[in-house]
Every structure is written in C-alpha cells, then in structure tokens.
C-alpha cells in the first residue's frame, strides 16, 4: 500500500447486502466519521467485522491515536455522505474530515472511516497515511478522492 490508498473492508460490502445492518447513505444519510489509529494494528481488507468500538469482531478504536490537541475521540465527521449511480456505476462519497493541526501521538498510521450512526459502528474503509506520522510536528490532513469509493459491477 501507499500513502493515500483507500481500501474498503470486505465486511462493509457484505453489510451493504444485509438490510439488518442498515447502512443509509440516502436522502437522510447516517453520520460518517474518520478517525485515526496508530501503527500497532495491521490493517487488511479482510479484517473480521471491524467496528469502531465494541459490538463487532474487531474493535479498531482500541488502536486510536492519543486523544490530545485537535484530535478528539472518534475523529472528525465526513460531511454529506451520499450514494449515486451514474452510467451503471455506483459511487459512494463523503466529505473530508477537518484537519488535525495539533496532537501528541507519534505514530499515526491509518485513517478509519466508519458509520457513526449504527450500533455497532460499522467500519467502511481505511486510508494509508504513509509512514508513521508524528502528530506533534504538523497538521494531518486527509483529502478523499472524488468519489471516495466506486462500486463497479464486474
């Protein structure tokens, strides 16, 4: 992986097919957030039922960076999540989280996008932040692609 790569969790795709999970990116979308975790967790697309907090198989929040400075627990909101279909391709998009200008954690490694409205808070995707980043040295800014995710029919 390289810095800026976004990978969707397999579990999220499965969850989209399960109305019992209930992701909603429609007219009144759920709240999507982006949090930051450190390098002590190896992020893979096959991570077992990743959730932010308890309720799933993997509690990704256990590896959240130190809560300090601009960085508040749970990360920042990604505004206006939405899903659209253009030319037979499905787009899932969300806004960029507000940058974190101050912090103390020394090995920020992954951005974690999750649905903050669900119980449990199901993870959607992760972002490679590059080499471990010392949040005390400068601002951490994550700018998602447009769209953030494309779902192609094979």
């Amino acid at each position: 992986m390289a810095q800026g790569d976004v990978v969707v969790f397999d579990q999220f795709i499965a969850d989209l097919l399960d109305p019992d999970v209930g992701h909603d990116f429609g007219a009144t979308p759920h709240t999507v957030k982006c949090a930051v975790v450190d390098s002590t967790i190896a992020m893979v697309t096959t991570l077992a039922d990743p959730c932010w907090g308890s309720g799933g198989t993997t509690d990704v929040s256990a590896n959240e960076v130190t809560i300090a400075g601009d960085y508040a627990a749970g990360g920042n909101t990604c505004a206006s999540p939405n899903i659209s279909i253009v030319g037979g391709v499905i787009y899932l998009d969300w806004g960029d989280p507000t940058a974190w200008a101050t912090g103390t954690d020394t090995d920020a490694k992954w951005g974690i996008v999750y649905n903050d409205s669900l119980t449990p808070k199901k993870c959607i995707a992760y972002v490679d932040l590059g080499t471990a980043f010392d949040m005390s040295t400068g601002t951490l800014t994550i700018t998602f692609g447009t769209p953030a995710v494309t779902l192609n029919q094979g």
Partner: protein
Amino acid sequence: MGWVTNADFLSTRNSQRGCATSANTRSDILWETSESGPHSYSGTAWIDEGSSYYGTGLSGGKGGCGAFSAALIAGGYGTTQQLTSCLYDGSSYAGGPSLPQNMRYTWGCGTPSSGFWVFSMDDTTSSSNEAYFNGTTWSSKSAFYSGPHDRGVVIGTYDAALAAAGATGYTTPTHDDLSRTWNGTSWTSITNYPTVNRNQSGFGTQGAAYVVAGEVTSTVTNAVYQWNGTSWAGEDNLPDSRDNHGGTGTGAGGWVIQGYTQANSPANPTYEWTFSRPVTCTSATVTLTGAGLVLQQPGRAHIISVVPDSFSDGQTGIVINTRFITTTGATVYIAGVEQTVTGTTADSITFTADKGTNEDGNYTLVVIEGP
C-alpha cells in the same frame, strides 16, 4: 512533510542574502534584504513594514535570529555594517553594540538574548570567525571554529549548534564540507556534509538540522540534507536551485527566501518546509464479481455463498448462505438428487451431501425455498 511554495517576495532586486529570523510560525517571519528594511509575511503575501533600514548602504550577508517582534541582526556586507548589530522590536530598530570583529557573509542562530554568530569572510586566519551575544554585549568565543570561515551555515542555539560546510577564500574560494557541532564550549567534528558547499541556508535544531541548497563549486544546487544527530540524509529537494538565499526556522518548520539562481539572477520565490502530512487519497474501487453478480439478477432471492465451495460425497455441515429465501422447509438438490437438510437459520441452510453421485465432477446445486 515537504516543501510548500508561498507567495513571491515583493522584488528580486539585488536580493543577495539578507537575514531571516523566525520562531517557526508565519506571523513571526522577519526578512530583511540587502537593500530594504523589514518585511513580514501575512500568510498569503509579503508586507513591507516600512521601517527604516538599520544601516546605511548595502548590507547583504548579514545574520539574524529571533522572531519578528524581537530580532537580532548583525554583521553583513558593506563598508560600515560589518561590525554593526541592532535589535528590532516589530516596529523599529535600536542600535546594538559592535561585533568583536568584522563578520561579512556570516550566519546567526540562537535568540536575541543569546545569539551565536559563526563565519566571517573577513577572517583570513580562521581564528576570529565566531561571536556570542548575551543580550547586552558581544564577545568572542575562546574555542575558535577552525573550519572554513566563509558562507557556511549554523543552526541551533548558542550552546547546541551545528555548523556545516562553507568556504575558504573569497575571489577563488575553496568549497568545503567540514561539519561540526558546538556545545557552548567547544566544537566536535562530525561526519562531513555530503558535498562541498557554500552560500547555503538552513533551519532546525542541532539534532534535526536541515541544510538547504547552495553552491557546489560552480554549480548551484537544490539538494537538501538533514543531520539527525548521527548522520546526514537527503530530504526532498528544494523546488528550484539557488544560493545566497535566506533561511530560517528553529524546529517545527523552515523557510527559504530569495537568493540567486544558477544564472546568477536574483530570485524571489519563497518556500516553506512543513512537517505536516497532507494525505491525498485515491478513489477506492470495489469490483463486484462472482456472487456479486447475483445482485444484478431479477428478483430478490439469491445465494450468497456455499461453504465449503467444494465437497465430497457424504460430507456433512455444508452451509448455503442465502438472502430473502424462506429457509424453513427448503430443499437442496445436487445433480437432481435431494440431499439431507440438517438445519436452517433465517439466512442459511445446512445440509449433508449424502445422496450425491459417487463420481468426481461439477454438479448443479439447486435450492428450492420452503413453502
């Protein structure tokens, strides 16, 4: 982490190295050129602060330290400025005591209350090329810097500094790569700078010092190297090559201002080194194949997966994961032969393949949902 291009300086006119002072933040930048007085940076543009110039005539090659609101400037190129020092308080200058020796093409570090100046073109004996300011008076240090005495760079504080490269001689300079650290009392040789160089700039701390660009014999370079306390390592190159430029910053960032290009033309771009981490994401693409195609079929009922997806005759515990199928009472067929369903949940059917063919091969699996 890397270079960010900021607004161009207001002019390129004869902008031989002036001096820059900063406590890292943009609002603290003070840049004084060889022919004009103090300038600050608003975050988007340079501002001519309009205060009178501290000396008279040309004064390039002077050193500076501090911040916009409290800066120490000393030395420089000219007929009267080589011994001159002054303090700037954000609005006006106040004359300071004279340096203990002429210091042209010098470099300063530290703070206005404990400034440390190294390198002097006027030192032809390598015995008087450093000076210390205690907030009131200047003095010479007893442990003289015995390396190249002209146009190197010194980074850090009065008691924890690093000096790198430089040259000996002016009209026919001998470029050098010697580097040393200073502990307030004595110099210690460290690994030589990766190239010979002079007229570079720098910023940072003794243990995380960044030396930027400069003149490698006859070539102006954009190479940047960092000293991490143990060794030199290449960093992102400056966006363009230059020498005789200003540089400033004491740890959390750095600036490079003006200078000369390879063609010896004055330049006015300004660059900022940032330790921030901008992460620009690529769009993730998920391609749905295989079972995903089931989603495109008419109707809602479908099979998600069969686990395991291959099995032997007589194998037990085979699970068919389903959606929108009435599993209660469902029947399972392999090659047209009904198998034994052993259990169901809302979204799965478990069966034993106990009534299939005895031959290896691929067979059609059919699920008929319950009534």
